[in-house]
Protein backbone atom coordinates (compact mmCIF):
# COMPACT_ATOMS: atom_id res chain seq x y z
CA UNK A 1 0.00 0.00 0.00
CA UNK A 2 1.38 3.36 -0.97
CA UNK A 3 -0.44 5.56 1.47
CA UNK A 4 -2.19 8.80 0.77
CA UNK A 5 -1.22 12.30 -0.34
CA UNK A 6 1.06 14.60 1.59
CA UNK A 7 -1.89 16.70 2.77
CA UNK A 8 -3.57 13.73 4.37
CA UNK A 9 -0.30 12.60 5.94
CA UNK A 10 0.39 16.00 7.48
CA UNK A 11 -3.12 16.41 8.83
CA UNK A 12 -3.02 12.90 10.23
CA UNK A 13 0.19 13.75 12.05
CA UNK A 14 -1.68 16.52 13.83
CA UNK A 15 -5.02 14.80 14.33
CA UNK A 16 -3.97 11.30 15.37
CA UNK A 17 -2.29 12.37 18.63
CA UNK A 18 -5.35 14.42 19.49
CA UNK A 19 -7.62 11.43 18.93
CA UNK A 20 -5.29 9.35 21.06
CA UNK A 21 -5.40 11.88 23.90
CA UNK A 22 -9.18 12.04 23.60
CA UNK A 23 -9.28 8.25 23.92
CA UNK A 24 -7.20 8.44 27.09
CA UNK A 25 -9.59 11.08 28.44
CA UNK A 26 -12.59 8.86 27.73
CA UNK A 27 -10.93 5.92 29.47
CA UNK A 28 -9.92 7.85 32.57
CA UNK A 29 -13.28 9.57 32.97
CA UNK A 30 -15.21 6.35 32.39
CA UNK A 31 -16.76 6.38 35.85
CA UNK A 32 -17.80 10.06 35.65
CA UNK A 33 -19.10 10.67 32.16
CA UNK A 34 -20.32 8.51 29.28
CA UNK A 35 -17.65 6.27 27.88
CA UNK A 36 -15.24 3.96 29.58
CA UNK A 37 -12.67 1.34 28.82
CA UNK A 38 -14.34 -0.06 25.74
CA UNK A 39 -15.20 3.21 24.00
CA UNK A 40 -11.86 4.78 24.90
CA UNK A 41 -9.91 1.71 23.87
CA UNK A 42 -11.53 1.63 20.45
CA UNK A 43 -10.88 5.38 20.00
CA UNK A 44 -7.22 4.87 20.87
CA UNK A 45 -7.04 2.05 18.37
CA UNK A 46 -8.67 4.38 15.86
CA UNK A 47 -5.74 6.78 16.20
CA UNK A 48 -3.31 3.99 15.32
CA UNK A 49 -5.44 2.78 12.43
CA UNK A 50 -5.63 6.32 11.07
CA UNK A 51 -1.84 6.58 11.12
CA UNK A 52 -1.45 3.24 9.40
CA UNK A 53 -3.99 4.06 6.70
CA UNK A 54 -2.50 7.46 5.97
CA UNK A 55 1.14 6.36 5.90
CA UNK A 56 1.27 3.21 3.83
CA UNK A 57 4.95 2.87 4.62
CA UNK A 58 4.11 1.86 8.20
CA UNK A 59 1.97 -0.98 6.89
CA UNK A 60 4.74 -2.39 4.77
CA UNK A 61 6.96 -2.68 7.83
CA UNK A 62 4.34 -4.37 10.00
CA UNK A 63 4.07 -8.08 10.52
CA UNK A 64 0.81 -9.87 11.26
CA UNK A 65 2.01 -10.91 14.65
CA UNK A 66 3.13 -7.69 16.19
CA UNK A 67 4.44 -9.39 19.29
CA UNK A 68 4.47 -6.19 21.30
CA UNK A 69 0.76 -5.68 20.74
CA UNK A 70 -0.07 -9.26 21.56
CA UNK A 71 1.98 -9.04 24.73
CA UNK A 72 0.25 -5.79 25.72
CA UNK A 73 -3.15 -7.35 25.16
CA UNK A 74 -2.40 -10.50 27.13
CA UNK A 75 -0.78 -8.56 29.94
CA UNK A 76 -3.72 -6.16 30.18
CA UNK A 77 -6.34 -8.87 30.37
CA UNK A 78 -4.21 -10.81 32.85
CA UNK A 79 -4.10 -7.61 34.87
CA UNK A 80 -7.90 -7.48 34.84
CA UNK A 81 -8.07 -11.06 36.09
CA UNK A 82 -5.49 -10.26 38.78
CA UNK A 83 -7.49 -7.26 40.01
CA UNK A 84 -10.53 -9.50 40.20
CA UNK A 85 -8.54 -12.19 41.97
CA UNK A 86 -7.02 -9.71 44.43
CA UNK A 87 -10.52 -9.13 45.69
CA UNK A 88 -10.65 -12.83 46.38
CA UNK A 89 -7.45 -12.66 48.41
CA UNK A 90 -7.99 -9.35 50.22
CA UNK A 91 -11.59 -9.48 51.33
CA UNK A 92 -12.36 -11.38 54.49
CA UNK A 93 -15.25 -13.26 52.89
CA UNK A 94 -13.15 -14.36 49.86
CA UNK A 95 -15.12 -12.40 47.28
CA UNK A 96 -14.26 -12.57 43.60
CA UNK A 97 -14.40 -9.06 42.09
CA UNK A 98 -14.36 -7.35 45.48
CA UNK A 99 -14.01 -3.56 45.18
CA UNK A 100 -11.27 -3.26 47.75
CA UNK A 101 -10.19 0.38 47.37
CA UNK A 102 -11.89 3.31 49.07
CA UNK A 103 -14.90 4.63 47.19
CA UNK A 104 -14.20 8.37 47.65
CA UNK A 105 -16.78 10.99 46.83
CA UNK A 106 -18.98 10.62 43.79
CA UNK A 107 -17.92 12.87 40.94
CA UNK A 108 -14.23 13.14 41.83
CA UNK A 109 -11.64 11.77 39.41
CA UNK A 110 -10.13 9.51 42.04
CA UNK A 111 -13.15 7.68 43.35
CA UNK A 112 -15.12 4.48 42.85
CA UNK A 113 -12.36 2.19 44.11
CA UNK A 114 -10.94 -0.15 41.50
CA UNK A 115 -13.30 0.92 38.70
CA UNK A 116 -10.89 3.47 37.12
CA UNK A 117 -8.05 0.94 37.23
CA UNK A 118 -10.24 -1.67 35.58
CA UNK A 119 -11.23 0.91 32.98
CA UNK A 120 -7.59 1.59 32.14
CA UNK A 121 -6.74 -2.09 31.93
CA UNK A 122 -9.72 -2.85 29.70
CA UNK A 123 -8.93 0.22 27.59
CA UNK A 124 -5.40 -1.04 26.94
CA UNK A 125 -6.69 -4.52 26.12
CA UNK A 126 -9.31 -3.27 23.67
CA UNK A 127 -6.87 -0.86 22.01
CA UNK A 128 -4.31 -3.61 21.45
CA UNK A 129 -6.97 -6.09 20.32
CA UNK A 130 -8.61 -3.84 17.73
CA UNK A 131 -5.27 -2.72 16.33
CA UNK A 132 -4.14 -6.33 16.04
CA UNK A 133 -7.34 -7.32 14.25
CA UNK A 134 -6.94 -4.49 11.76
CA UNK A 135 -3.26 -5.19 11.12
CA UNK A 136 -3.87 -8.91 10.73
CA UNK A 137 -6.62 -8.42 8.15
CA UNK A 138 -4.76 -5.70 6.23
CA UNK A 139 -1.35 -7.35 6.21
CA UNK A 140 -2.57 -10.83 5.35
CA UNK A 141 -2.50 -10.19 1.60
CA UNK A 142 1.08 -8.98 1.65
CA UNK A 143 2.31 -11.90 3.73
CA UNK A 144 0.63 -14.42 1.51
CA UNK A 145 2.50 -13.16 -1.51
CA UNK A 146 5.89 -13.56 0.14
Amino acid at each position, binding site marked *: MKGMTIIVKKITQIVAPLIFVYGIYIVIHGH*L*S*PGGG*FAGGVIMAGAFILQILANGSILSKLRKQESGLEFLESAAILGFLIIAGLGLLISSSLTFFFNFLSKGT*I*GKLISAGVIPIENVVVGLE*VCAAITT*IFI*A*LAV*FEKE*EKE
Partner: protein
Amino acid sequence: MILFVLCLILFIIGLYGVVTKRNLIKIILGIAIMEYSVNLFFILIGYVKGATAPILGKAFPKGPFVDPLPQAMILTAIVIGLATTALLLAVAIRLYRKYGTFDIRKINSLKG
Protein backbone atom coordinates in the same frame (compact mmCIF):
# COMPACT_ATOMS: atom_id res chain seq x y z
CA MET B 1 -45.46 -1.19 20.14
CA ILE B 2 -44.80 0.04 16.60
CA LEU B 3 -41.15 0.56 17.55
CA PHE B 4 -40.75 -3.04 18.69
CA VAL B 5 -42.41 -4.29 15.52
CA LEU B 6 -40.10 -2.20 13.32
CA CYS B 7 -37.13 -3.44 15.34
CA LEU B 8 -38.17 -7.05 14.85
CA ILE B 9 -38.72 -6.38 11.13
CA LEU B 10 -35.05 -5.39 11.03
CA PHE B 11 -34.30 -8.73 12.72
CA ILE B 12 -36.28 -10.62 10.07
CA ILE B 13 -34.50 -8.71 7.29
CA GLY B 14 -31.16 -9.80 8.73
CA LEU B 15 -32.40 -13.39 8.82
CA TYR B 16 -33.56 -13.03 5.22
CA GLY B 17 -30.04 -11.96 4.28
CA VAL B 18 -28.50 -14.95 6.04
CA VAL B 19 -30.87 -17.48 4.52
CA THR B 20 -31.24 -16.29 0.95
CA LYS B 21 -27.98 -14.58 0.02
CA ARG B 22 -25.15 -16.44 -1.66
CA ASN B 23 -22.36 -13.97 -1.14
CA LEU B 24 -20.29 -14.49 2.00
CA ILE B 25 -20.02 -10.75 2.67
CA LYS B 26 -23.80 -10.36 2.35
CA ILE B 27 -24.33 -13.19 4.81
CA ILE B 28 -21.98 -11.50 7.26
CA LEU B 29 -23.90 -8.24 6.80
CA GLY B 30 -27.13 -10.14 7.50
CA ILE B 31 -25.73 -11.47 10.79
CA ALA B 32 -24.53 -8.00 11.75
CA ILE B 33 -27.95 -6.48 11.01
CA MET B 34 -29.63 -9.11 13.20
CA GLU B 35 -27.16 -8.28 15.94
CA TYR B 36 -27.96 -4.56 15.69
CA SER B 37 -31.69 -5.11 15.79
CA VAL B 38 -31.39 -7.14 19.00
CA ASN B 39 -29.20 -4.41 20.51
CA LEU B 40 -31.86 -1.83 19.74
CA PHE B 41 -34.53 -4.16 21.11
CA PHE B 42 -32.87 -4.25 24.53
CA ILE B 43 -32.55 -0.48 24.71
CA LEU B 44 -36.18 -0.02 23.70
CA ILE B 45 -37.14 -2.33 26.55
CA GLY B 46 -35.10 -0.38 29.06
CA TYR B 47 -36.43 3.05 28.13
CA VAL B 48 -38.59 4.92 30.65
CA LYS B 49 -40.68 7.87 29.45
CA GLY B 50 -39.34 11.21 30.58
CA ALA B 51 -36.28 9.70 32.19
CA THR B 52 -32.68 10.80 31.68
CA ALA B 53 -29.43 9.03 31.01
CA PRO B 54 -28.21 7.17 34.10
CA ILE B 55 -25.43 9.54 35.10
CA LEU B 56 -25.20 11.34 38.42
CA GLY B 57 -23.61 14.77 38.49
CA LYS B 58 -24.05 18.49 38.43
CA ALA B 59 -24.78 18.82 34.73
CA PHE B 60 -27.32 16.03 34.76
CA PRO B 61 -30.75 16.31 36.36
CA LYS B 62 -31.49 14.02 39.25
CA GLY B 63 -34.74 12.76 37.81
CA PRO B 64 -35.79 9.20 37.13
CA PHE B 65 -33.19 7.28 35.15
CA VAL B 66 -33.57 4.86 32.29
CA ASP B 67 -32.68 1.29 33.18
CA PRO B 68 -28.87 0.96 33.20
CA LEU B 69 -28.87 -2.84 33.08
CA PRO B 70 -29.91 -3.29 29.40
CA GLN B 71 -27.35 -0.66 28.50
CA ALA B 72 -24.65 -2.60 30.31
CA MET B 73 -25.73 -5.82 28.62
CA ILE B 74 -25.73 -4.23 25.18
CA LEU B 75 -22.30 -2.73 25.76
CA THR B 76 -21.16 -6.31 26.19
CA ALA B 77 -23.16 -7.49 23.20
CA ILE B 78 -21.75 -4.81 20.88
CA VAL B 79 -18.19 -5.86 21.64
CA ILE B 80 -19.11 -9.52 21.20
CA GLY B 81 -20.71 -8.64 17.86
CA LEU B 82 -17.55 -6.88 16.75
CA ALA B 83 -15.51 -9.95 17.68
CA THR B 84 -17.76 -12.36 15.78
CA THR B 85 -17.92 -10.13 12.71
CA ALA B 86 -14.15 -9.77 12.61
CA LEU B 87 -13.65 -13.52 12.91
CA LEU B 88 -16.18 -14.16 10.14
CA LEU B 89 -14.39 -11.67 7.89
CA ALA B 90 -11.09 -13.38 8.57
CA VAL B 91 -12.53 -16.73 7.46
CA ALA B 92 -14.21 -15.10 4.44
CA ILE B 93 -10.94 -13.56 3.24
CA ARG B 94 -9.20 -16.94 3.61
CA LEU B 95 -11.99 -18.66 1.69
CA TYR B 96 -11.73 -16.08 -1.08
CA ARG B 97 -8.02 -16.82 -1.44
CA LYS B 98 -8.65 -20.57 -1.59
CA TYR B 99 -11.63 -20.61 -3.94
CA GLY B 100 -11.36 -17.28 -5.80
CA THR B 101 -15.00 -16.44 -5.14
CA PHE B 102 -17.41 -15.30 -2.46
CA ASP B 103 -20.16 -17.57 -3.81
CA ILE B 104 -21.20 -19.99 -1.09
CA ARG B 105 -22.50 -22.52 -3.61
CA LYS B 106 -19.12 -22.81 -5.25
CA ILE B 107 -17.53 -23.38 -1.86
CA ASN B 108 -18.59 -26.97 -1.47
CA SER B 109 -15.72 -29.36 -1.00
CA LEU B 110 -17.58 -30.96 1.92
CA LYS B 111 -20.34 -33.29 0.86
CA GLY B 112 -22.62 -35.89 2.31
